[in-house]
Every structure is written in structure tokens, then in C-alpha cells.
């Protein structure tokens, strides 16, 4: 039996190092691991928006040539967001008379759960993942797509025209932008052959040149397309039509107040980080620094038998690197928000359907053809199938243990049919 909330990595650490002689079966260990993860993620989920909202204010202020928060919690206003949060919790939980009360109350939770759930599959570093799903990327995209339902319900149930308009805009926009987003996400997936974000991360070990953004021309373009689309799908400016305060007061959350309102914002900032995290893993090398430091440390830990603690330390460094990258992308989104004006809804839709969708499809096609092109251009020196999928289909190895370093140029040119035959031959 495989529990839902248990990771290959952290649960293994718990099992193998701390609790390996713990009385009873593994379910207790898994439960402990799950609880740890829940706490960790909830904490992150709670803390990160605080930081991001503060950051947003500061960035907005700096860009608008002002200071932003300066008082609460010290000189830089560290605790401004926290103070806001306390204020929001204290506020009365209002519900309009015409609202559908049940849906009105449930919608923020739906948004929150969807956004929160996405982090189950997002690795924060080597081993720092709640559930190392083989379809991790797919899972994240799926859960984040649920967010829009909450928004739509919120808009509908508010009993307000502004809210309804906002909700409908949100629905149209997000449903449209999900498509190019998924396609763009598939471009690096073609290069790696895996939807498992941990594997994708491992794939990019060994320097900045191995980052997937530099894998081929299409992934390079795909990164920018992806980032644009991701910005739109988390309804960040200049695509924030759902809460266009100049037209719709506040869009879908016009009628919300207090803690329910803050859920929407926590979800929004979490989603910003989630899509940024996906971008980091798909294009920007995951937890690797790009200069070989992590790899060197890994090698060092392996060679000198530093045990799980050494490994853990290295992983924590990787986690820091990943969070730094993700935060940088979030910062970039903020930067864009305060730089560019908001588009009209027709422009938003046109951008998606007339430009981004064809571009992403072209990139997808190009990425599929690229290995063949490269194969023919280099006279067979490169492999058609050079992804982990082909690699794994060809060379028998334990699936559970991930290699620390993946050789980029593993010469395994055999096509799929030959793979099977040779595999079964070895079996015999």
C-alpha cells in the first residue's frame, strides 16, 4: 500500500535514519512524515504571502518613487503584512443578503485548497518534496486549474454584478491561458522525458549549460512564453482583469472581507510562487546553482561517507537556492505589474488565442522535431532518444534510487522496439 501523503525522500529519511527500528509498521512513520510535511507547507504557505505582500508594497513603492511600508516592525516595515493580517482576522465575516451563502463561504476554501494542494508535488530541493509523484508537473497544473472554480463561484455567489463580471472574466481568461501554459510546460518535458519534477531537477545537474532553458532554441523561447502565460494564469497584472479595480471595483472579491478575503490573497501569492517554482524546475535548473557547487558538495558527501546529515545539509543548500530563484521570478512578476498598464479583456483573449497559443504549438512541434534535426545534422553523433524515459527503458536500474548525477550525453541510440527486445533478452 502506498500512502497518499508520503514522500520518497523525507519519509525515507524518517524511516531509514530516525525511526527505522520504531515499533509497529511503517504507517506510523508515514503519518509522522505526513504531519511534518503538512506543518512545513502550511507554514510556508502562510509565511510566504506575508513576505511577498510586503515585498510587493516595497517594490511598488520603489518603482513609484516612494518608500512603501516603513514603520511596523522596524525600519523596513517588516511586520506590516502581519499587522494587516491580524486586522483582517479581527474583521467581521460579512455576507451580502442576495448572496448564495453556502457557496459564498465555500469559495475561498476552494481557492485556497487548490493553490495549497499544488505544493504537494512541488519539490523544494533534492528530497524536499511531499509526494514524489511521477506525474508531478501534471498534478500541479491540474490542481492549479481548480483555482478558477473557486473564483467563479465566488463571483457568482456574491450576488453582485461586479463580482459576477469578474468571475466570468476570470473563468474565460484562465481557461484560455491554461492551454498554452500546459503546452509550454511540455516543451522542456519533451527534452527530459519525465513529468517528475525531481527527475527534471536531476536532469539539469552539471552547470548552467545543462539548464533546460539552454537545451535548445525552443525551450529558450518557451521559457519566456511560459512566464507570460503563467503570469496571466495567476491573474497578475497586466492580466488582472478579474479584479480590475478601475472598472469592477474589486472584481470577484468585491463583496469579501476579513479572513476570507485574505485567503484569496494568500492563494494568489502562493500561486505566483508555484508557477515560478515550476518555471525554475522546468527551465532554470531547479535547486542547482549553475556553477557546480551543489554537485561538488554531493560528490564530497558521497565520497567521504558523511551519512544522511551531510546529504541533508547539501539538500538544504539546494532548497535555499531554489527558493531564491523562485522569489526572483516572483519579484520579476511584481516588477512587471508595476511597470506595465492593464490590458483590455479583448486584448487579453486575443493575445492568448491569436499569438501565444500558435507560438506555443510551434514551439512544441519544434521541440519534438529538434532531436531528429540534431541527429541528422551531427551525422548520428547525438541520440534521438536522450531523455530519462529512453534511458530508463534501456538500462535496467533501480527505479526508487535516483542517481545524483545524470550524464547528459549517455549514448543510447537504440529505438523503442530494439529496447524491448534487448531488455527481454537481458532478462532471459
Amino acid at each position: 500500500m502506498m500512502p497518499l501523503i508520503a514522500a520518497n525522500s523525507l519519509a525515507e529519511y524518517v524511516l531509514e535514519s530516525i525511526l527505522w527500528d520504531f515499533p509497529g509498521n511503517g504507517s506510523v512513520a508515514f503519518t509522522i512524515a505526513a504531519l511534518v510535511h503538512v506543518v512545513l507547507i502550511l507554514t510556508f504557505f502562510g509565511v510566504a504571502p506575508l513576505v511577498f505582500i510586503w515585498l510587493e508594497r516595497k517594490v511598488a513603492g520603489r518603482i513609484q518613487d516612494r518608500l512603501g511600508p516603513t514603520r511596523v516592525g522596524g525600519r523596513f516595515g517588516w511586520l506590516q503584512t502581519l499587522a494587516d493580517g491580524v486586522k483582517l482576522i479581527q474583521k467581521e465575516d460579512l455576507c451580502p443578503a442576495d448572496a448564495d451563502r453556502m457557496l459564498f463561504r465555500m469559495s475561498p476554501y476552494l481557492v485556497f485548497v487548490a493553490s495549497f494542494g499544488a505544493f504537494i508535488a512541488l519539490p523544494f530541493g533534492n528530497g524536499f518534496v511531499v509526494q514524489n509523484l511521477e506525474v508531478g508537473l501534471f498534478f500541479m497544473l491540474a490542481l492549479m486549474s481548480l483555482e478558477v472554480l473557486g473564483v467563479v463561484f465566488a463571483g457568482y455567489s456574491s450576488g453582485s454584478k461586479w463580482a459576477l463580471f469578474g468571475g466570468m472574466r476570470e473563468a474565460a481568461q484562465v481557461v484560455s491561458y491554461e492551454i498554452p501554459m500546459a503546452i509550454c510546460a511540455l516543451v522542456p518535458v519533451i527534452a527530459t522525458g519525465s513529468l517528475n519534477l525531481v527527475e527534471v531537477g536531476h536532469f539539469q545537474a552539471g552547470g548552467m549549460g545543462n539548464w533546460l532553458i539552454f537545451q535548445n532554441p525552443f525551450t529558450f523561447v518557451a521559457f519566456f512564453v511560459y512566464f507570460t502565460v503563467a503570469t496571466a494564469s495567476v491573474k497578475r497584472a497586466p492580466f488582472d482583469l478579474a479584479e480590475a479595480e478601475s472598472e469592477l471595483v474589486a472584481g470577484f472579491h468585491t463583496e469579501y472581507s476579513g479572513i476570507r478575503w485574505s485567503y484569496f490573497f494568500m492563494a494568489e501569492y502562493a500561486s505566483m510562487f508555484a508557477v515560478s517554482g515550476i518555471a525554475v524546475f522546468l527551465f532554470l535548473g531547479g535547486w542547482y546553482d549553475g556553477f557546480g557547487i551543489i554537485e561538488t558538495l554531493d560528490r564530497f558527501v558521497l565520497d567521504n561517507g558523511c551519512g544522511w546529515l551531510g546529504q541533508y545539509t547539501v539538500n538544504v543548500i539546494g532548497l535555499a537556492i531554489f527558493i531564491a530563484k523562485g522569489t526572483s521570478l516572483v519579484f520579476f512578476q511584481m516588477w512587471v505589474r508595476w511597470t506595465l498598464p492593464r490590458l483590455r479583456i479583448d486584448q487579453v483573449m486575443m493575445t492568448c488565442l491569436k499569438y501565444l497559443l500558435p507560438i506555443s504549438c510551434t514551439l512544441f512541434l519544434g521541440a519534438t522535431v529538434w532531436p531528429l534535426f540534431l541527429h541528422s545534422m551531427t551525422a548520428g553523433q547525438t541520440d534521438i532518444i536522450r531523455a530519462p524515459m529512453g534511458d530508463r527503458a534501456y538500462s535496467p536500474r533501480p527505479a526508487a534510487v535516483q542517481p545524483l548525477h545524470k550524464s547528459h550525453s549517455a549514448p543510447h541510440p537504440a529505438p523503442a522496439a530494439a529496447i524491448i527486445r534487448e531488455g527481454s533478452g537481458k532478462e532471459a
Partner: protein
Amino acid sequence: MTGHQLLFWVFAAVTCGGAIAVVLTQNVVRMAFWLIVSLGASAGLFFLLNADFVGTAQLLVYVGGTLVLLVFGVMLTASGPFSKMQTRPGELFLAGVVAILLLGLLGSSVCSVEWDRVIAATNSGHQITNQQSLNHGFNRPEEGNTGHPLGMAFLGMRPDRDLVAGNKTLSTGYLLPFEIASVHLLVVLIGAAYLARAKRRVHPNEL
């Protein structure tokens, strides 16, 4: 009670409760909400059944795509305030009786089958062993993480069948159905766009 059992009961309760709520609710938007709850929980059941890819697909396609469309439809076809679409009590009663009978029939059918024997009968003898599948980098279906095997199956290869020792024949996988489904989706896309396209309605007073 193991974790699996606990999770199963939670998910099963939410699934069934959501479904029943869909039936009992009269407001269409709430029906949609309960449907989301029910389907999402059934995605959880899929995860419990080690079908993580199916569960994810359920979430992405069904919940994230289809239901958004449904909600869209609900909002586009909102009826006027005076038109009540109440079902007659007699019909409701009849439906309830039929539902109970049908449930009893299905439940008794499920319970009267000795599933162990049935499962044993399905053992074809050509089962890939755990070590074999691991050697080839695939998990057995019952072990979850079926993304890769499913992908291979859609590309026309069945690792769980073809990699069995001594098996000389290659299965064809699901390439053809996959392609047919793809074309079907395209056709449906065009057809739906055609059906739902904006038509200028001619009012009698405009003539």
C-alpha cells in the same frame, strides 16, 4: 484502521455525499459545486487505487475543464426569475424507489460475487514480476506511478506485458484508440464551436 482505510472512508463518504447532494440540490450552481466535490473526491479514490495519472487527469480534464464549462453553461442559460423547473412529487417518489431498487440490485450483485476467485482467474501467468519491472524502470500498475507505463501504452507498447520473460509477441498498445480519440476531440471542438456560435436572432418586431 490503517491510513488507507481511513482515507478511503473519507474519500468515499465525500464522493457519495457529493453525488447525493447533486441529486437533492435544486440550484444548478450548487449542483455544480457538489459535483466538483464529488469528482474531486473520486480523484482521491483514484490516487488510493494507485492510478495517479488517471486521478490527475480527472482533476485536470474533468474538474478543471469540463466543470468550468458546465458552470459556464449554467450561467449562460440562467432562466428567468418566474420560470420554475420543479419536478413533480410523483416523479421524485418514483425516482427514489427506482434508485433504491437499483442500488440494491447493484449492491447485491457486487456483494454476491466472490472477487478473490475472479481475480485469481484473471491471472494469465504472464505477469511481470516486481524485479523485472524495476529493472526496466517501470512500476507495476498496482504500485502506482503509472505515468510512464501509460505513456508507453499510448505510444503502442505495453511494458507490463511485453517485458515479461519469454514473451515473444509484442502487444499493440493503445496507439490507434489514442489517435482516434485525438481526432475525435478535434472534431468535437469544431462541432461544438459551430453549434454554439453566435446566431443573430430574428425578432418578429424587427421584420
